[in-house]
């Protein structure tokens, strides 16, 4: 609506067309120049984000000279890396840790997804909370929360046991393999939930109803119908969590190191941290890592290729039949709530409690006397604390925007472009490859790359953005891609036929309709980048400190109360930011 455009009559149709193309478009020929430019542009950008950091690892492994010096090619580095016998137990530890964690995560996460999606448990309404709240929480928060809870010296549980039960030895020690697995599992639970819940949602309920009609009980249906059908999804999810756990750094560092349990990722980190820093060794170690994760991804594709066969979405969009829990209600719901508490509730409580305490204290009516706000002031004044938050926010947003734009463009090319299909598929594969690359790999790779290249990127904010975009690109591609896939192609075609150019159609129709997915992508990547740790620890420098790394610093400095205050404030800030974006989104959404 609005005033009519200025009087410009439709031009009389000329004898020949306005736009002339030299040849009839076929799949590889340059038809419309814009298309080719877009696809090659995307290819270059995505390729640059992902390939050089990888390639450079090979380079580093093949030399024994630090970056920026004349390279001396040798096998010595590889021999040093894989000749040391201590690396192999570390690898085994990693694999054991990853396998056990992945299995537990799957069981518990699957249970939660099932409860929320398929039963009539009252906890169903808490889905949003459960899925979203942990995204706000940095891994550090979870870990520090549990350390504060069951750490041997100052863990609240142990303190309370000492105070109230007179027990001298800590009853629960987080610094153990079991402790690592426990926290590792809790850390990935929200993601497992998010991953598995849609699978439960889209199952055709008639498959299970047929089982019930045939006389099978609820458990039998679950065992012989539901689970087998979901097998590809479950298998794929297991492999993904296996890879995540392999690449985990925060748990192995904060819990494993003090417990003298060495994982493969810790070894890579230690190679970097030793004096003098041995990046060549770190690169050499990373190669094996890459090999293991690549093999895992291969199996992932094998497992989920079958998924298409098992897809059960009816297309009619009605919700699956809910299972009545009856007398199981209390048990099941109770269990779900307890899990929610473990993942979010307890660490939060412990954190907030400690934020107000001058030193680690068991919660009691007595200790309430000690409540102080001194920690907050100290946190604000702690070195680069404020700068770190600002950095992390800005970097997160920048990375979120960049990743979302790439993801949206790539998704559009994949869904709508009729030519260059093979190139687009290739770029798409490349963009989702970082799932197999732990953040740490990018950390080492990017550090190396920009020490070698004569461009002023190392030690700047840019190197962090590059890392974040690369690491989270698969998420952006997936979120924006599915948002675009929801749009019927005819909506765009109608715009074209009505006379709009490609650009106008994108602007007035596609982007407007895909805006929610786009915003979700920006938000999600921004939040994950805010929490990002494994790559940041290699790439952050004085001036470009980031939140997650600073928190680790505080922890190592023994300032757990100041740390608690700091994290509490930041979480409030993040929570506000998310609420704000939801509010803005809803305002804009009303016009949709």
């Amino acid at each position, binding site marked *: 609506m609005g005033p009519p455009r200025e009087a410009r009559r439709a031009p009389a149709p000329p004898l020949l067309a306005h736009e002339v193309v030299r040849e009839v478009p076929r799949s590889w020929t340059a038809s419309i120049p814009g298309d080719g430019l877009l696809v090659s542009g995307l290819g270059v950008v995505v390729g640059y984000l992902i390939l050089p950091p990888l390639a450079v690892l090979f380079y580093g492994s093949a030399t024994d000279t630090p970056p920026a010096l004349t390279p001396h090619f040798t096998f010595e580095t590889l021999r040093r890396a894989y000749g040391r016998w201590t690396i192999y137990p570390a690898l085994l530890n990693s694999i054991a840790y990853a396998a056990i964690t992945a299995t537990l995560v799957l069981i518990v996460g699957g249970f939660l997804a099932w409860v929320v999606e398929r039963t009539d448990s009252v906890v169903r309404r808490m889905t949003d909370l459960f899925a979203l709240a942990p995204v706000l929480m940095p891994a550090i928060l979870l870990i520090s929360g549990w350390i504060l809870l069951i750490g041997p010296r100052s863990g609240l549980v142990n303190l309370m046991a000492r105070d109230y039960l007179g027990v001298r030895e800590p009853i629960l020690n987080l610094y153990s393999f079991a402790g690592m697995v426990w926290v590792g599992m809790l850390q990935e639970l929200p993601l497992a939930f998010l991953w598995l819940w849609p699978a439960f949602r889209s199952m055709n309920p008639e498959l299970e109803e047929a089982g019930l009609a045939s006389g099978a009980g609820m458990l039998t249906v679950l065992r012989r119908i539901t689970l087998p059908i979901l097998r590809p999804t479950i298998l794929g999810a297991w492999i993904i969590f296996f890879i995540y756990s392999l690449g985990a750094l925060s748990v192995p560092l904060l819990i494993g190191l003090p417990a003298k349990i060495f994982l493969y990722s810790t070894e890579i980190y230690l190679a970097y941290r030793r004096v003098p820093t041995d990046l060549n060794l770190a690169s050499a170690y990373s190669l094996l890592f890459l090999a293991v994760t690549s093999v895992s991804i291969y199996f992932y594709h094998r497992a989920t290729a079958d998924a298409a066969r098992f897809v059960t979405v009816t297309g009619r969009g009605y919700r699956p039949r809910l299972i009545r829990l009856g007398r199981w209600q209390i048990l099941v719901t109770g269990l779900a709530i307890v899990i929610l508490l473990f993942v979010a509730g307890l660490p939060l409580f412990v954190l907030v409690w400690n934020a107000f305490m001058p030193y680690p204290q068991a919660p009691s009516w007595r200790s309430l006397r000690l409540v102080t706000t001194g920690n907050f002031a100290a946190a604000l004044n702690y070195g680069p604390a404020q700068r770190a938050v600002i950095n992390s926010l800005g970097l997160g947003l920048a990375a979120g925007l960049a990743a979302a734009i790439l993801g949206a463009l790539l998704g559009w090319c994949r869904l709508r472009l009729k030519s260059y299909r093979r190139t687009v598929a290739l770029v798409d594969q490349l963009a989702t490859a970082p799932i197999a690359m732990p953040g740490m790999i990018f950390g080492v790779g990017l550090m190396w790359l920009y020490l070698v290249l004569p461009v002023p990127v190392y030690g700047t904010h840019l190197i962090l953005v590059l890392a974040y975009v690369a690491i989270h690109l698969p998420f952006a591609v997936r979120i924006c891609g599915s948002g675009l896939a929801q749009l019927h192609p005819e909506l765009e075609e*109608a715009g074209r036929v*009505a006379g709009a150019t490609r650009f106008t159609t994108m602007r007035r129709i596609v982007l407007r*309709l895909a805006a929610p997915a786009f915003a979700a992508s920006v938000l999600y990547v921004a939040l994950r980048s805010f929490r990002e740790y494994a790559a940041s620890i290699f790439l952050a420098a004085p001036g470009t400190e980031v939140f997650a790394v600073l928190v680790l610093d505080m922890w190592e400095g023994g300032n757990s109360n100041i740390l608690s205050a700091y994290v509490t404030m930041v979480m409030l800030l993040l929570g506000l930011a998310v609420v704000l974006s939801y509010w803005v989104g809803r305002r804009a959404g009303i016009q949709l």
Partner: protein
Amino acid sequence: MIKLTGVIKRFEAEREWVAAVDDLTLAVEAESFFTLLGPSGCGKSTLLRCVAGLETPDSGEIEIGGRIVFSSRSGVNVPPNKRRIGMVFQSYAIWPHMTVFENVAFPLEVQGLTEVRERTAKALAMVELQQLGGRYASRLSGGQQQRVAFARAIVAEPDVLLLDEPLSNLDAALRQQMAVELRKLHERLRITTLYVTHDQAEALALSDQIALISRGRIVEVGSPEELYSRPRILFTAQFLGGANILTGTASRAEGEAGGTTVATAFGTLWSANIASGPVTVFIRPEDIHVLADELGADDREGKNVFACIVLSDRFIGDSRQLELLVAGGSGTVLRCKVRGRLQVKQGATVRVRVDPGDVTVLE
């Protein structure tokens, strides 16, 4: 108004190239309502999309209003937004984030035309949606969405109007109603219309000309009456309405009535067409008349009168569909359509008669 010459469009399907449109040549007269009719997957939608510019043919030429919009020989390919067409999509493609008014005004805005408000209001009035201008498009019923789509297609007064199975998503009653309205709108606006459907009843009701398409090729072109009553190809006879297909040998008939006798497995058929040698004939079910039991005047000539046993009887409401086994052991089964009120007993013997003029010889 629309001319297609030698259009070929191939798609890759499982490592093989399949021609969706296979060397198709067609001409649509100005102001006519031209339907592309055919079974699913015959290429009619692909052809429509080629005319719209949403698909690019592999070769051929397409001309709209005397202007070449596509030519593989001279390398011309006008993009869809410059072809001055209006199109109604099968899913309607109404933009959910805009109001009805904004949807319909869109073509005027992006083509830089004037009098947006007046022309939009006029288009909306034509489809009787004047009051709904301010409503968000996502809150409309199927029928309303279809009207909005139509208004949007005609608002910029395009040279041609393309309709891609616009009625297939509506329920039966609404479909009939909208079909009638479509025809009325066409008569009012007189825009050249190219219509795609797989529903032969729709095609017969709406069109000035029908092109029957199968596997990317044109089978036959003609007016609804021509194609229904005097099809030349077997496919046409079977696709448009029921048909009893019979084979036999034809020879010239004696007598002043002229025509042809066809010797079939179950008896002699008289046809008003001229033919000789082995032929295929067809008879429409509604042209087989069930005679009253008593022998009447019709029986005197004895031409095309056969005794049959009623195998099955289906009551449709306004009509009754019978399956009749022709007596004599030939095993020939005829399908016959009679008035609903006629009482027939299963297993009874009846006599039927076909007028020689209703026995059509196919090429």
